[in-house]
């Protein structure tokens, strides 16, 4: 009997201590991991959207609480005013899972500056072609007040042939970002000015 008790106690103790150590490591290093993810995963998309080295814009980041999720927003200032935003959005229902997108918004002219793909797991040669400039370029100059849609639904975006699902997910993600912008614009600008005051 005591043998069994000892086994249970020792194994539970080991497992408990291990979980404690892991939790500590995970929480302690979370900010550092977030920074690295920003630099290596979001960095390339931001670089293309803002046309600036990623390191310059990575610190211009606010995280907005949108009810059920937290949405990272990057910004760029032109003098005193915030000129450009990059809003992260999730394109739900891609062929190989959700897409992570970054939508560029020009606040001065109220137009989109582009759509960038942060990460995806679409089929190479079909859905993965959302990364190609030819497809992404279609977002440039679209108004921010109006929803985007595929040409088949009377919209402006030509779907990638053979990858309608992926194109639809990208469009859906964009609309989510635009809706988020409409509902939270004040909040975004407020958080940005708070951050700017601090630094």
């Amino acid at each position: 009997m005591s043998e069994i008790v000892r086994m249970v106690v020792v194994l539970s103790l080991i497992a408990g201590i291990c979980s404690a150590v892991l939790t500590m490591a995970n929480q302690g290093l979370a900010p550092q991991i977030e920074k690295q993810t920003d630099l290596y995963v979001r960095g390339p998309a931001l670089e293309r959207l803002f046309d600036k080295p990623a390191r310059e814009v990575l610190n211009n980041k606010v995280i907005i609480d949108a009810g059920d999720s937290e949405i990272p927003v990057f910004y760029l200032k032109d003098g005193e005013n915030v000129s450009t935003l990059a809003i992260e959005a999730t394109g739900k229902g891609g062929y190989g899972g959700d897409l992570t997108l970054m939508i560029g918004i020009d606040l001065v002219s109220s137009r989109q500056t582009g759509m960038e793909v942060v990460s995806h797991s679409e089929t190479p040669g079909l859905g993965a072609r959302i990364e190609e400039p030819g497809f992404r370029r279609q977002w440039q100059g679209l108004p921010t007040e109006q929803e985007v849609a595929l040409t088949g639904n009377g919209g402006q975006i030509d779907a990638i042939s053979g990858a309608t699902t992926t194109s639809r997910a990208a469009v859906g993600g964009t609309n989510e970002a635009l809706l988020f912008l409409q509902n939270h614009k004040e909040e975004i600008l407020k958080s940005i000015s708070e951050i700017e005051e601090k630094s």
Partner: protein
Amino acid sequence: MTQNLKLTLTAGLWKRVPPFRLVLGLCPALAITTSAVNGLGMGLALAFVVTMSNGIISALRNVIPGKVRIASYIVIIATLVSIVEILMKAYFFPLSEQLGIYIPLIVVNCIVLGRAEGFASKNPPLPSMVDGVSIGLGYTISLTLIGTIREVLGAGSWFGHAVFHESFEPLSFMVSAPGAFVTIGVLLGLQNLFSRWRGEKFIQG
């Protein structure tokens, strides 16, 4: 005592060198050694895990009941591997993307479990840690060597720096799976040939 430690330390570099003499840990040795830096990163990650796990397991060897020892070892090893994974994500992000699933897979790496069961559970902490360092170093050197051969021949570079003139046409098969088998096979054969020539007594495996 010091004599024994020295023997343990050098054993991992030749007599027990993991991918060749022990023929353990072949899965990462085949899969990630497409470049020297990957081999080095994988080797160092494993060296850290095997050293720490040997130390901890050996310190607890009289506490852990025999019937649940493997389960306890796995929990300890898995914790160490997760710590390595978190550290890599935090400080060497591109490398951790490259090594991908092979870092978490160190948990079921036969070298780590083999050293825990075969050495650390029977010896005091200091020799066990020395054994871990030696096996880890041996593995690191071997993986870096395999990675070097494959990268130099297959991509014409070493640690990312070009080593050949531009006219060199890389043997791209060296950086794909068959190249790994050929490289490891040839190195294993050379080591055995050398040992036989020197009249060393050795048992493969």
